[in-house]
């Protein structure tokens, strides 16, 4: 299969454009930087570790805030480490939770080694088989507009795999002070009294 042409920074910026009151959780590594590059936001919770946990952080948030859209933006390596979370989410079926997997088929943080998605493992098919309501895989720029509404509005749980070019982008680092990220998120969501 030819190398995907989608550029990850443009994909993430499009998904987050005019995001309204959406709550966003990012998986460690490049998706965290991509979301920071799209514009830092108090309602972004950036993971810098705890690999494999992005979807379950999103699940806890989605259950606590059932009227808000929760979008998890993570990478293929991070998602592969937490595959069981797809089964847990499918069993709970939160209709406000969506997952965008920015899939470059590489472990970008450790030297661009191939992940299992590069060997053909199909994350959208796994999510569909687990019981996600909406799943899709995007390879072409022209298909991006079709899946933005799935991520932003469709009844979840939804998972979209976005096959992107392995090209590296300049680092854009958001804060990594954990208490700062937690407290600013809670205050933006729950009010100034929340700490």
């Amino acid at each position, binding site marked *: 299969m030819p190398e995907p042409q989608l550029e990850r920074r443009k994909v993430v910026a499009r998904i987050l454009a005019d995001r309204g009151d959406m709550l966003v959780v990012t998986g460690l590594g490049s998706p965290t930087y991509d979301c920071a590059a799209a514009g830092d936001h108090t309602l972004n919770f950036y993971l810098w570790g705890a690999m494999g*946990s992005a979807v379950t952080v999103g*699940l*806890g948030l*989605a259950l606590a805030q059932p009227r808000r859209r929760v979008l998890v933006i993570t990478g293929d390596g991070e998602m592969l480490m937490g595959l*069981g979370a797809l089964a847990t989410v499918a069993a709970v079926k939160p209709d406000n939770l969506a997952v965008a997997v920015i899939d470059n088929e590489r472990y970008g943080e450790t030297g661009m080694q191939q992940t299992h998605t590069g060997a053909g493992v199909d994350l959208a098919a796994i999510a569909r088989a687990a019981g996600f309501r909406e799943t899709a895989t995007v390879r072409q720029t022209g298909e991006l507009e079709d899946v933005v509404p799935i991520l932003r509005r469709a009844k979840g749980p939804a998972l979209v795999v976005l096959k992107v070019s392995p090209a590296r982008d300049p680092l854009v680092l958001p804060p990594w002070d954990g208490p700062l990220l937690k407290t600013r998120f809670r205050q933006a969501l729950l009010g100034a009294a929340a700490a």
Partner: protein
Amino acid sequence: MHAVSLTTEEEGVAMLAGAWLGGERGVLLMQSSGVGNCINTLALAKVCSFPLLMIVTMRGEWGEVNPWQVPMGQIAADSLRLTGAIVHEVDEPDAAAPGVEAAARIAFSGGLIAAVLLSQRMLGTKLFKD
């Protein structure tokens, strides 16, 4: 209250972090064999000062018949302490409720990790007999 079954215990560490971000609180229940599964993910609670309350039923600790349970059971409390968790070990039924209440208070008021370990001495031992 939501009760959510997990595929592996560390999902609960992450889920309760997300719930706290959204203004809710919860408790993670597991068997001691799950403590090892949680270790790396506990960094999330520790580094962000998320409150985390865990209740752990012990295996491999007292009179265990299955030797495969013993290695993790014997290091569960020390492993939790190494992560920075506050550990209350309970081996009398009357001490269980006060232990959980104390752990909840210290976790939720301070953004700390607290675990209550329920001993096999009071839970009894699985004997693998019909």
